[in-house]
């Protein structure tokens, strides 16, 4: 494709991922909402497992990418790592919002409350707010290099929240149930495991699709900034030339 023909951030990869998500979505919904049987204790609300746990895993993965990209940016100083960190943080925040919402909605029929200041829920809310803060730092009106460096440091420090969230149920007494995947032991089986795997595939592919698109959008934003900078420099040069010439 020629540059002039490019009118969106899509690529061959995102097209393939998009078709895969569209193909898997009805199967995932059929298994998640119909085929998997109601749980003996939780009843129909167990179906929220297929939304909540995949969103947790995608959130963790996205924030892990932020950690890695931030470290790489500090090491290499190339803007692409900074853009990847920014894109991944935004995707992670979206999935974190989904996990908080689905968790609250699941909590009502299971525990009788949408929200409890329990260690797992509180630490997840803190993680969500800390990455919102990270995104706010990325929008600060600063020298781009300084802003990227500060964001990278914050992107590394914020990952402490992910560790706290993950181990919160071990470190403190928590209302929250144990991990679905505990040190390689899968706590679900049968259609539950199958429906969950489908959910994980759909959520992971959606997250990847969003990450690629957002990365390319951030790339375009950076190109626009550079165009503005180039025209500002050209303007200053022509001003200087006018002053010098008699």
């Amino acid at each position: 494709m020629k540059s002039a023909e490019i009118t969106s951030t899509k690529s061959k990869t995102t097209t393939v991922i998009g078709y895969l998500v569209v193909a898997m979505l009805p199967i995932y919904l059929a298994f998640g909402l119909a085929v998997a049987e109601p749980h003996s204790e939780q009843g129909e609300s167990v179906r929220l497992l297929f939304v909540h746990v995949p969103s947790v895993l995608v959130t963790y993965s996205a924030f892990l990418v932020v950690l890695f990209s931030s470290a790489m940016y500090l090491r290499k100083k190339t803007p692409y790592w900074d853009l990847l960190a920014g894109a991944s943080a935004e995707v992670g925040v979206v999935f974190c919002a989904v996990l908080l919402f689905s968790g609250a909605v699941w909590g009502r029929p299971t525990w009788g409350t949408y929200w409890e200041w329990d260690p797992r829920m509180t630490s997840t809310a803190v993680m969500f707010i800390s990455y919102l803060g990270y995104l706010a730092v990325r929008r600060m009106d600063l020298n781009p290099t300084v802003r990227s460096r500060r964001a990278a440091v914050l992107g590394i420090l914020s990952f402490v929240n992910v560790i706290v969230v993950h181990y919160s149920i071990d470190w403190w007494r928590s209302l929250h149930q144990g991990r679905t995947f505990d040190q390689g032991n899968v706590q679900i089986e049968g259609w539950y495991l199958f429906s969950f795997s489908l959910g994980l595939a759909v959520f992971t592919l959606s997250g990847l699709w969003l990450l690629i698109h957002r990365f390319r959008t951030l790339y375009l934003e950076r190109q626009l900034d550079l165009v503005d900078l180039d025209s500002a420099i050209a303007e200053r040069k022509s001003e200087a030339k006018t002053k010098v010439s008699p």
Partner: protein
Amino acid sequence: MNNWEFVIAGYLGAAVGIGSYAVWVIRRGRRLTQKVPVERRRFLD
């Protein structure tokens, strides 16, 4: 035990959250592509 309203709310919430973000990203991408000069779009090939 019938808690379908919570199940539907959970699935819908996820769809609306992720879906609206996806629409925003795509629209922003299209808008920016129009603004960025052709020679600077090369990376998107």
